[in-house]
Structure formats: structure tokens, C-alpha cells
């Protein structure tokens, strides 16, 4: 079912003594087939080749040289943090998606989803409706959470500022995923 871990150190109890969780995880690592290029995204020109090879998966860390080789990328600032935009467009599931590189060279992605927490959804409806214009909004009444998904990253960044102003007591963020959870 799952291939053995090839790089297991022999200091363990023989190379055959493999953890199932490692094996499962290796199956996850075998997903180089995940290619953003196939997902309808627009890449910076120098990045297209690497995208096709599947080297832009979430969590992958690029060296400084690798980032430099990508050429001049669009810069964005989210919550005071600088990012370079690797690609933007629509994912295979039809959702808007932007792939970013943080200052450490780690690749992350966002579906342009603003998360508003610690705030009754009624307040969000009343006081932040204007800032949510154009977004697909889902209200979680029982847990005081609202999610707003914007077509473009720039819209989400603008809305972040506006919602914070409208709801200063709320916890509002534009989460970027830098690592996908693994089975344990």
C-alpha cells in the first residue's frame, strides 16, 4: 500500500522497522503532482517552469537564490508583513487563489478569506456590511465567526483594514496557509 521511507537512518532497529505514520506521511509527500499551474493560475514568467514541475507546493521553502531567480514579483503587504506574489487566479475547485512567498522563502496560499472572530455575527452584519461588499460571506452564528471570501486579494486586504476600523473589538485576519496538516 504505502512505500517504505527510503531515507530512514539505519541506526534504528533495522531499515524495516518503519512507522506507519511515516509511511502515511510519505504518501502525502508523494504528491508532487500538485501543480498550481494546472489550477488555472497566472504565474510570474520565470516561475511558470517551476510551477509545472510541482515545486511550488505549500510549505516548500525556496532558497534566496531560488527566489531571486524568479525575477521581479509583485509585492504585497498584509498586516504589516511583506510577501511576493507568485501566482494568482482560480484554483481547480473554482475558488480564487493566490500563492505567496514570505520573507523566509516559504510558499503559502490564500483563498482571499477574511476571518472575523470573537464578534457576534449580528454585529458584523450591522456594522461591517459595506466592507463586505463583493464578498461571499458565511456567518457562523453559534461560534461568533464570519468568513468573507473576496474575488481578488487586493479586495481582501482593503476589507481587512475597513473591518478592523468598523469592528475594533473583533479579531480580524487574512490567514495564509504555510503548512498543510499531516496525519499522525
Amino acid at each position, binding site marked *: 500500500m504505502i512505500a517504505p521511507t527510503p531515507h530512514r537512518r539505519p541506526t534504528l532497529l533495522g531499515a524495516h522497522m*518503519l512507522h506507519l505514520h511515516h509511511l502515511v506521511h510519505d504518501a502525502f509527500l508523494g504528491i508532487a503532482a500538485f501543480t498550481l499551474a494546472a489550477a488555472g493560475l497566472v504565474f510570474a514568467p520565470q516561475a511558470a517552469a517551476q510551477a509545472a514541475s510541482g515545486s511550488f507546493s505549500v510549505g516548500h521553502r525556496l532558497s534566496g537564490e531560488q527566489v531571486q531567480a524568479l525575477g521581479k514579483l509583485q509585492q504585497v503587504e498584509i498586516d504589516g508583513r511583506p510577501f511576493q506574489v507568485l501566482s494568482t487566479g482560480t484554483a481547480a475547485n473554482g475558488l480564487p487563489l493566490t500563492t505567496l512567498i514570505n520573507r523566509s522563502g516559504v510558499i503559502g496560499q490564500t483563498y482571499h478569506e477574511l476571518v472575523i472572530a470573537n464578534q457576534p455575527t449580528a454585529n458584523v452584519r450591522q456594522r461591517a456590511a459595506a466592507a463586505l461588499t463583493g464578498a461571499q460571506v458565511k456567518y457562523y452564528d453559534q461560534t461568533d465567526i464570519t468568513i468573507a471570501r473576496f474575488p481578488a486579494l487586493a479586495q481582501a486586504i482593503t476589507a481587512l483594514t475597513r473591518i478592523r476600523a468598523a469592528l475594533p473589538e473583533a479579531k480580524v485576519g487574512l490567514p495564509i*496557509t504555510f503548512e498543510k496538516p499531516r496525519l499522525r
Partner: protein
Amino acid sequence: MKSTSFALGSPVSVRHRVSAKRAALALLSCTALLLSACGGGNSATPSAALTSDPTALPQPQPQPQPQPQPQPQPEPISTCTETGAYACRSGETEPLYTFQWALNYAKSFFQTNADGGAYGGGFDLNVEPVHRLGIKGEGVHVLVIDTGVDLKHEDLKDNADYSMSYNFEAGGNDPDPMLTSDRNPHGTNVAGIIGAAQNGIGVMGIAPKVKLGGATLIIRSEEVQTSQNVIDALGGAGWSQKAHVINGSFGTGTDPEIYSIEDSPSIAALRGLKSLRGQKGTVFVKAAGNAFDSQDDGLECGSLQGAYDCTNPANDSSTLEPNVIVTAALNAKGQASSYSSAGSVVWITGLGGEHGQGGRYGERSGRTAAELAAGATGSGPTIFSTDIRGCSAGYSQKPEPEPNTDFMRGDSELMTGVKDNPNCDYSYMNGTSAATPTITGVVALMLSANPELSWRDVRDILRLSARAVDMGYERRIRKDLDVPLDKPYGARFDLTTNSFTTALGDKGDITAGARQVPMELGWVRNGAGLVHSNWYGFGLPDAAKAVELAQLYKKEPQRSRSSAQIVPSFKRVAVASSTSGLAYQKVTLLAAVSDSTDQIVDEFQLRLTGEAICLGSLGIAVESPAGTMSLLKMPLDHFYHREVADFEKYGLGSYAFYGESTKGTWKIYALASNPEFDGRPTCGAAPADGMTLPASASLVVEARTISQ
């Protein structure tokens, strides 16, 4: 060093309740000690774990505050009123029960097929007394967020709840993993450990009458894990709000995460769980991780692999939330599973076993008689459960399953002529992924006995019922490696040479200017009289005790604690740099923070933001006002391999101070090792002299105490 003086976190509006809460805590603390001394009711459960080797305990800490007071024992559970073919009986009705050592070690196949390298502890969860009273999880809904669950399986279908399920890849409410691109059996195995039915076939779950749902969220299709889907699964959607307990046998932790609710939909959703289940809070049980001896996937420990855990469960920021019950794994030897991640956010220990590679059922250690005679240990059994149906899918499949044992191939015969697993519908699995559902199962039994328990009650009862295991483990020398280690886990680590010395360390070694520190403190008794371990949390629960306590809470509801908990903001307590004395290869007191409030500690948390500092060479220890020392981060960890030099709001936490007073001075130490390891710098900012931080380096330390 920077010294500040203010309360950690915001003032809490319920201070007037502190005295009453403290009195209640004292009672519960005493209960814990009494129960620990009494041990489990199962003969297979060593009952004298806490007292069998008293010298293994650390030296007494400063006088516990408050003083424990006498506490009545919970009354025995009432008589069984269950009806039906399997009424008031435990797993003896199921043909594969003999392999389920986690439920009854003494009666298991493994007890009578002993291999000295694989067995010896004899611990189990002591669930049979609960089953015999007819308490089997009825009325409790458990959601497994995983790879999906084969709810049509013969041993799961009677407990399936499709209205509590969702398939994020295929759409619809059938979480069948075969409908996903992964076809991964992980979630089906997890579900069976919790709630495989008692029906005369296959295995039996710990809570065989729970209702089970599945969510296919942890699959390789990256497009599944949107913020919306994460929140939907974690109590946001109507179907997930049906869950009373959620099992999370997954996690992150390769790179330092930003710990804030604004940056993590998981944190937002987890905090929202507290308001569900009729304001009692949905219980969330999560795996600690499998990276203790990892060499894989960005979690490499280098040449010190196996000597200590160079990773940290806290690297998954969701484990820092108090309503996440972080679960480590124990093997059939009664010792931590070789892979089980260790850290100060571990709350409890479940049963996960080892690798199951040897023998017909994974029962052999893989060692020769001569090796065993020389004291070697090795592998051992894992956790048996349900698998995706059929011999062409799942862990058990032909022709070469992994592990490739007779049972996994479907060829084994415990009774001649009768195949144990003829259709490959059952398999076994290890990992904290397997240990976590053993705890989830116990939680389901507790909630079945008393549905009014809040998430905090559940967490406390797990702790109160727990047994300290593997006493003195910090003095043990690892013997399951081909090249055995020659120094104990608790040996002092030299911050200059990045190597272990032969001397056993203790908390007294962690002082400003020191150059050798222990990497493991073992079981630590804190100022409230509670014992905690980075390896085991508060220990291994005893299900019978846990259910007795759940019933006691029902009888005396004033014991229950509200689901609401204030999480104060972090406060900056230090900005360290070379000019403030922070340097590699030594211990530095980062801050001595005076807290003037007098509340009861739930969790102490830190958040670090660094520039030009090798995070992989930076350890953190915290000493409470009561004198309890806790290692929150190792001075050499896998971040060296990631060459992390800049990090923001990287979170750490510890439950070692649980129950102590917040009042007094908290000391936060940096344990910085040599930023060169295995012949290369641990990050690009490593100084040439190996000691002096660059002028541009800074470390911002924030702290808070979350009170009970």
C-alpha cells in the same frame, strides 16, 4: 536580563471567585493523588506506579499551595441496566478482541506470547469495568476529522451517523475514503478504535455505542483545506455541531507558526468550540505528533536522533489552546512509544504501541535472544482496528501490505483453519494518531455517564484519573536503537559542544550563566502537588476511575467548571539582544516578571519574535513562583535544519504549572546552544565565534498566564 513588574495578561473580572475555585482545586488535587495511589481496578494495570519507585520522583518542590485537603472517594458505579445480546459484557464477545491489548492487556494474545523486548508494562485503559456496567458511549456523538471513514464497514455501520459527516472532496455526507483521491484508511482505523460496534464480529471500540461521523479534511487535495472548510469541520457547520467530541489525529509543525487568532482559522474555530454542546463546549482531542526520533520531512534531528525530541508539539499552534487535549502515545512496555512527540503542552497519554513489524500480529520485538538477554528492546504491537473493506484497499491488502504480517495479509489463523481477517477488513496502526482515539473513546464513556460535563471537566477528569507511568524515565538509557545510546534521557546537554555529558541533570542546572542543562526533567511535582511530564502530560487515564468521577460530578454538580475561559492578551516582558546579555552557548535570564494577581494557573504561554537569531539553537525554560521548572523548548531542535533565523509570534506553552498560584515572580530563561551543529551553522545569522549575537539580532518575548 530584563526585569519587569506587572500582571501577566489582563485583569480577570472573576477574581472574587478565586478562593472558592482554589478550594475546589485542592480537593481535586487530592483526589488525583488518592486515585494515583489506588491505581486501576484491572489486574493488568500496575497500580503502584506512583509509589513503586519513590526515589524516581524529583526532589520536593517548595511547599504546595494550597494544601491538599481530604477528599471522599467517588462511590462505585451503579449496577448494569443494559439490555440486549451483549448487555453488561465487554470485548470477550468479539473475535479479534484478544489483540486489543489497550483494552485488556492481561487477557490479550500479547500477554501470553511475550517477547521481553516488546512487552513488560502491562498497561491498559481499564475499560472493562465500565463496559460491564453497561456504559458504552450511548448518546455520545464523535466526529473524526481525518481522511474519511468507511461507515459502511460491518463493524461501523451500526454506529454511523451520516448527518454528522461530510466529504469535502466528493461533496455530500458520505465520508467514505474510497470516494476521495487518497483512499487513505487512516480515518477508518481511528474511528474503529473509538467506536467499533459490539456485534460479535471483528474488534470492539472503547465506546462501542457512540455515534460516529467522519469529515474528509486531512487529505492531499490541498484545495480542500480552505479556512471555511476548516471552520465548518470544527463546529462551524450544522453537521459538525452535532459532535460532542472531535478526534484530531493530525497536525502541523515543520516551520514556526504565528500564534494568533487573526492568523489561524483553526484557533478561531477552536475557541468557538467552547460555546457549543449547550455551552458546555465540544471536546477536542488532538495527537501530539510522531517526531521524537524523526529524520524525515523537515523534522530532522541530525546526529542526535533519538536522544531527545528535537521537535515540539507546540509547533502546531492549535496545541497551545487549553481546550485542545494534546495526547502522547504509550507502548505495550509501558513506556513512551519511540516516536511519540514530547513537550510541555502534552496533557495526557493514550495507547499507540510501536511498529507491529515482527511476528504474525506485530507481536515480536525484532531482537534475537542474545540481544534480549543483553537488555535490548525493540518493536511491539500496535492498535488493532477497522480498515477500509476488502483486500484491495486499506492498510491490510494483498499482496504486500505494510507491515507485511500474516494478519495484515489476511492469512493469519489464531485457531487452525479459521482465518482471523479473511476479507482484510481489519488492520492495525500506530502513532499518536492511534493513541488519540483511545482517549477520545474514554471521553465518550465519561460523557455517556454524565453528559453535563464541560470541556474543562472532561480535561480535569482525564487528569484526575491518570496514572503516572514509566517513573524515572529520565534516568533510562534508550535500548531500541541498533547502536544503543550510552547516556540517559535526563543527561546534561553541553551548550558549547552540542553533546550530552554523562552526568544526570536537574532543574537546578538551569541558572543564568550555566553551560550545561538537562534536556529532560522527568516527572515534575509542581507547587499544587500535581505531577506532570513533557513525555506523558498527566499520565495514562484509567477509564473506570474517569467514569466514576464523571458520575461524582453528576451527583455533585457544584464541582463542574464553566466552559467559559478568559484568554488574556500577551504582554511584552523582554526585548533581548547581545547588549542585554543574550548569547549562544549559555543560559540567560531573559525576564523576571512579577505577577501581582492571585489566580490559579491553567497554562503559561510565551510568544517569541526574533530577528537574526537561530531559532533552532534557542531553548526556553520557565520557572514559576512556586519554583517549578518546565522546559518549553529544547536548546537544539529541528528548526536548525530549517535554518530559521527570523520568526514572528512563535508560541510556546506549558501545563507543568497547572493549579499553582499566578502570584509571584516568573523567570524566563534562554538556553542557547552552539549555533553550529553537525558541521554547519544552524541558520544564516550564526556568528563566526559561535557565541555573540549579531548587532542586528533581537528577541521579543511576550508572556501570559491563562487562569483556570
